[in-house]
């Protein structure tokens, strides 16, 4: 599913910062991977590259067989629509849109018919247990509920790769646990490949495999002890 070869990412001009200093990594389809590391280790950069939100300075990134490194903005956008979905620590819901509208957003961007949209939105909301909340605004929901809306939005396209950036970072333990369970369930039932950046060991322990980053390099890579609970 993911194959990174000698990926380097540097920022800025004169006082260049090297975020990633040559990463080699392979993630097979159906894995659930946690990426951990201290601040500035390059976790978020890596996730952005995986999601095609950014391109590496050098090296190649194969996602589902497509090399994102040499693709333009538009191709990467189109690719994201079908292949990659995101969840964020801050949810990034449109505050002015209702829950169902938020979930429907990626489908509308892809130009799906409205009948199809409503069918899939309903299903996705059911999958995350928010059937009754579809006409609420994000402001009216709790943090956990908001993140579930974000997950529904990620599920709705049926993308095989889900990238999660600190999905439990804004949540208390109980809510965080709920979200992790939901992600595991998705992983299990749909075979979705999940890559999750996290600070939280508890969250990481929900994954099958743990990749540790430090100073833009892979410091460690291996199965999580007791992982996949």
């Amino acid at each position, binding site marked *: 599913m993911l194959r990174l070869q000698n990926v380097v990412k540097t920022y800025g001009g004169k006082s260049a910062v090297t975020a990633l200093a040559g990463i080699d990594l392979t993630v097979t389809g159906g894995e659930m991977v946690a990426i951990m590391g201290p601040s500035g280790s390059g976790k978020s950069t890596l996730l*952005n590259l995986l999601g095609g*939100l950014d391109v590496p300075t050098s090296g190649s990134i194969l996602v589902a067989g497509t090399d994102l490194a040499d693709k333009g903005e*538009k191709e990467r956008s189109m690719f994201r629509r079908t292949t990659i979905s995101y969840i964020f620590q801050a949810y*990034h819901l*449109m505050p*002015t849109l209702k829950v169902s509208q938020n979930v429907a957003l990626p489908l509308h*961007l892809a130009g799906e018919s409205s009948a199809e949209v409503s069918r899939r939105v309903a299903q996705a909301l059911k999958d995350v247990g928010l059937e009754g909340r579809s006409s609420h605004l994000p402001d009216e929901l709790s943090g956990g509920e908001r993140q579930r809306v974000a997950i529904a939005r990620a599920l709705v396209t049926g993308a095989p790769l889900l990238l999660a950036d600190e999905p439990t970072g804004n949540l208390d333990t109980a809510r965080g646990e709920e979200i992790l369970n939901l992600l595991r369930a998705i992983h299990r039932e749909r075979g979705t490949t999940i890559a999750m950046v996290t600070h939280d060991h508890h969250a990481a322990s929900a994954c099958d495999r743990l990749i540790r980053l430090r100073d833009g390099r892979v410091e460690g890579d291996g199965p999580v002890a007791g992982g996949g609970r």
Partner: protein
Amino acid sequence: MNFLLRTLSLSYVRRHLMKTMLTLLGVVVGVATFSAIRSAQGTLVKGIRSTVDRVAGKAHLQITMAGGVPEEVQEKVRALPGIRAISPVIEQIVVPERGELGSLMVIGIDLLGDREMREYGFEGEDADLDDPLLFLAQPDSAIFTRDFAQRAGLKTGDTLPVRVPTGVRRVAARGLLSPKGFAEAFGGNLMVVDVYAAQELFGRGRRFDRIDVRLAEGTTVAQGTATLAKALGPAYRVETPDRRGKQMEQTVNNFVAGFNITSGFALSIGTFLIFNAFNVAVNRRRRDIGTLRALGATPRQVQSLFLMEALVIGLIGGAVGCLAGGAIAEGFLKMMGQTTDTIYGVTSSGGSVRFPPGIILESVLLGIVASLIGAWNPALAASRISPTEAFAKGAFQAKIAANQAPRIAAGVVALDCAILMALFPPYAGNPLILSIMALGGVGMVLLVGPLSRLILRLLAPLLMGLSPVAGRLCSDALLGAPRRTSGTVMAMAFSLTFVFGLGGYMGSMTATMVKWMDDVLTSDLYVRASANWSRPDFLFPGTLRQELLKVPGVRAVESVRTIRPFYQGHQIVISSFEVGPVMKRIKYEYFSGNEQSIVQGVGRQGMCFVSENFCGRFNLGVGQSVELMTPTGPVRFPIAAVVRDYGSDQGAIYMDRNTYLRHWQDDRVDIFDVSVAAGADVGQVRNLMRAKLAGKMPALISTRQEFIAEIKKAIDAFHALTRVTVFLALVVAFLGIVTSLLISVAERTREIGVLKALGAIPSQIVRSVVVEALVISLVAVIVAIPAGNLFAAFMEGAVARFYTGWSMPHEYPWEIMAQLLVTLPFVSTLAACIPARQAARLKITEAIEYE
């Protein structure tokens, strides 16, 4: 896309209703100005055309001559082959004493012969003419339209007091016209009188304004024109009514052309408001944009979303602008009508403004285009926002490219090109003016941003010195959001440039003219019969000069006669007076020739002298001669001198009265210049003259100061509409500040919240917002002063030269400058009111939670 527009955009609008409305208002003002000017112009022109057409009736041709058509031409024309009927006409606008009835168009026709000409019978069904003999026998007889009579409450036999040149006259309604065809000319505000009575009433002597000609069947217009031209000679114009109408239309269109530029200006400022608003919206919504992009939106989809929003704003703004335009068009029409009437002598019927679909479509399109142009750049910027940047916390502001050098260089080059082109025109005419304006505009757009930042940076320490808290807050706000700041400054600077430029131009023109009048108008008293400058309502008989000379205290009287014939397609002025005595008191500025050559050549040898713009426009100077069509045939007048003169924007020729009398055989007089004997009291002489003329002739007797003031008033009237548009430009600038500040406050909600949490009191916050407004206007003024100077110089130079051939020394618009420096702080503070109050009211908890 539809979904996004319906959900995302609409909800954004709902949340930021006030800002959206203000943005919209920018478009509305621009479009309203444009549509109002266009429709007023259209109505004006249409009114002129319809009146010309309706009055022309069945006439195929109309014979006119500068100064009027002598009566005997009638018989001459009647005898020609191919002529079925002819009818003399005198037209004049008068105002009833009851002003609310509106101006009346007086048409003097020969009721006996007119049945062949108008699509109208003055007997029988069409008109109820009580007693034709009585009508003819009594000089106060008039026929009104039924509609007007009803409005005025007139019955047959009633009288209506009307202001005519000789004073107030009571005219008796002796007939009524049914409203159709002819009777609908001039919006039905029609008063038909006998043409010979009209001669008397309006001092036309034994002349008519024109003779309408109906050709016999089988005679073509071309044949008829040829026959008439051959029989009458070149001093007469033989035209179809259509062509005559078109010429008037052209005059009006030329006059209005300037206002199209004005409305364009208003709209471009509106465009800047949109640019500004969208810039800010893009900033505010960057996270949303990032999310959309992460969810798979292509850059193009993001761009389209913003452009669609702009489209909707343009559409709504255009539509509302049209409505608003309709509301103000009536006023514009009135102003334009008055000006064309006083300056050009072209009158249109009152009527209400028509809003044809074409103008509505144009206006809405214009709103859309302006809006799209304004939104284009921000939309593009939005599409280029990468999701990673969008999610980066805090630091985000649409970045100013690190290297501003190329932009500044391009701006300087564009501006320099504009200046060079104005100084050394590579080509001429409208294309030149447009290219210079475009280049100058581009240069300004490119330079205002960097320049305003530079000024702000220089001002920042000063501000902080003045008020540590508010000053710092405001300079941070301004420098921290360079795009917003420069957008607002640009909109304001453009408005102010416009104000300075046009104001300077108007000021220079007035000042130049006043100076010229000081040199040229040196008599003590001016006796004239007509208040209208270009279309004399009344002319004095030449013999009146002797009468005036007999008035005690009068030392000298000179007779000025001015006609406005066409010369090579331009309506020039030919003016004649007693050159010998006049030259003794007039100081001309000579371009070539001198006083001696005028006294000798013009005074004694029948030569002429011309104005500088005549010389420039027709490329004729001393040593050459100008061939003029006189009633006695074409005559060549050698040019003795070229002088600075502002008698006509198309060119003026001056000659001795004797020369004029000899060739034009027209001894009537427009104005008598009266010099008072040493020691005599001017006021007393005036009273004596008034007493002498009272009841016999209309006479407006002005002292020199009054006369100059009256001309100045006419010039001011000419500028009235410009003033309005300048005012609108200021309104748009005001809107710009309000939007910008509202946005600024919204942007800094969190910051303001933090400040309050740290102990800032509301008054400090308010002060910072007010200071921000003041600084924005100050920077805009600093930028606009040089730009406005350039613009004024351009108007006075290239533009004035192109349209009038006049050269005008630049007068700095100190007055406007002073006015602005006084009013702008008030206006800016006012503009800051709402945003400042909004800022002061912010609840700390909400503010900090904000996003």
